[in-house]
């Protein structure tokens, strides 16, 4: 049975698209056929982060309107077998994403894929609401920073009340916390909320902690999902998160600062 995962956050710029690309690529690499769907109508970017922007012909709205079928619109990833991208439309008409249309496309994707990753736009408006509505699981991307944590809590409230699962009184959406842009050095100094702090406030299981890393920008510059950069800290952290999502138990790495001799002498 296919599962729909929404990658959401409320706040913008916390790493939803980076996470969607990484999660999609990681699931596909683990052998599951996966589609990553960009819900950010008007601000298509998933294609760019995943490096398939020049092969986009049709988009999500084209499929909803019947201008193209799903096969024509899905862009096949060239690196990972079984990974596909459904790009968002660049239209400025936000209403183009109709509720019935989204439901139909997701139903069709369920038939073909093991996992469908929905990359939510920022905010809690229509696009974000549609991205989460059909979700079975939610990855709430949060930065260790006050506005992001507050927005994440708001989004958790919506996941509990405004999703199809909530409306039908089924088992609630399974929520996971993914902490990104984490800086262990600043946490050590008491300048940044720790993963325990954020976990305590939001009280949902921690899927992973992605360290603040140059690798993320380097990967998006190149159009490569960062999870495929296996020799980088962020790539490994995402890989661990994907493994945990798939039920594997893995210890959290990258929670401590790498310390040199001086750090060990003078640090706490």
């Amino acid at each position, binding site marked *: 049975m296919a599962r729909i995962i929404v990658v959401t956050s409320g706040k913008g710029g916390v790493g939803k698209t980076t996470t969607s690309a990484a999660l999609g690529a990681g699931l596909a690499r683990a052998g599951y056929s996966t589609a990553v769907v960009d819900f950010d109508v008007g601000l298509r970017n998933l294609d760019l982060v995943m490096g398939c922007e020049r092969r986009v012909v049709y988009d999500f709205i084209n499929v909803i309107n019947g201008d193209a079928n799903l096969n024509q619109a899905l862009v096949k990833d060239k690196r990972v077998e079984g990974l596909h991208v459904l790009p968002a439309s660049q239209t400025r008409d936000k209403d183009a994403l109709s509720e019935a249309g989204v439901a139909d496309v997701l139903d069709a994707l369920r038939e073909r894929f093991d996992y469908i990753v929905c990359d939510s736009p920022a905010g809690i408006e229509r696009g974000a609401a549609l991205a989460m509505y059909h979700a079975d699981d939610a990855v709430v991307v949060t930065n260790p*920073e*006050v506005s992001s*944590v*507050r927005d994440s*809590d*708001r989004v958790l*409230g919506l996941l509990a009340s405004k999703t199809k699962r909530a409306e039908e009184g089924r088992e609630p959406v399974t929520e996971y916390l993914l902490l990104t842009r984490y800086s262990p050095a600043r*946490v050590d*100094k*008491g*300048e*940044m*909320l*720790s993963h325990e*702090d954020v976990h*305590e*406030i939001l009280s949902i299981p921690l899927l992973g902690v992605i360290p603040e890393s140059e690798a993320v920008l380097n990967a998006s510059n190149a159009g490569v999902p960062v999870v495929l950069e296996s020799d980088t800290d962020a790539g490994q952290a995402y890989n661990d998160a994907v493994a945990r999502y798939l039920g594997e138990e893995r210890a959290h790495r990258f929670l401590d600062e790498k310390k040199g001799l001086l750090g060990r*002498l*003078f*640090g*706490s």
Partner: protein
Amino acid sequence: MSFLDYFRSQKKRSAAVAKERLQIIVAHERGQRGGPDYLPMMQDELLQVIRRYVDVGDDAVRLQVDRDGDYEVLELNVTLPEGSHSPVSAGEP
């Protein structure tokens, strides 16, 4: 604990402040979230009624719905200003 911590602990760490502020605002917002839709309107009307008698600020009335098993408890908190014993003159006939 290294000797540098002695200097660091001079002022409250910013992360601790952030956590405290978040816990308060998140608890407050969760309290409102679970409640019925009419809550903000009721809060507003209560404020107007109280203002007929006492001059209070916009945040004087706090409503919170708590769940305890099968029943809900509506908690109403009104903060009166100091020396609020005399009625507002505008409220007099």
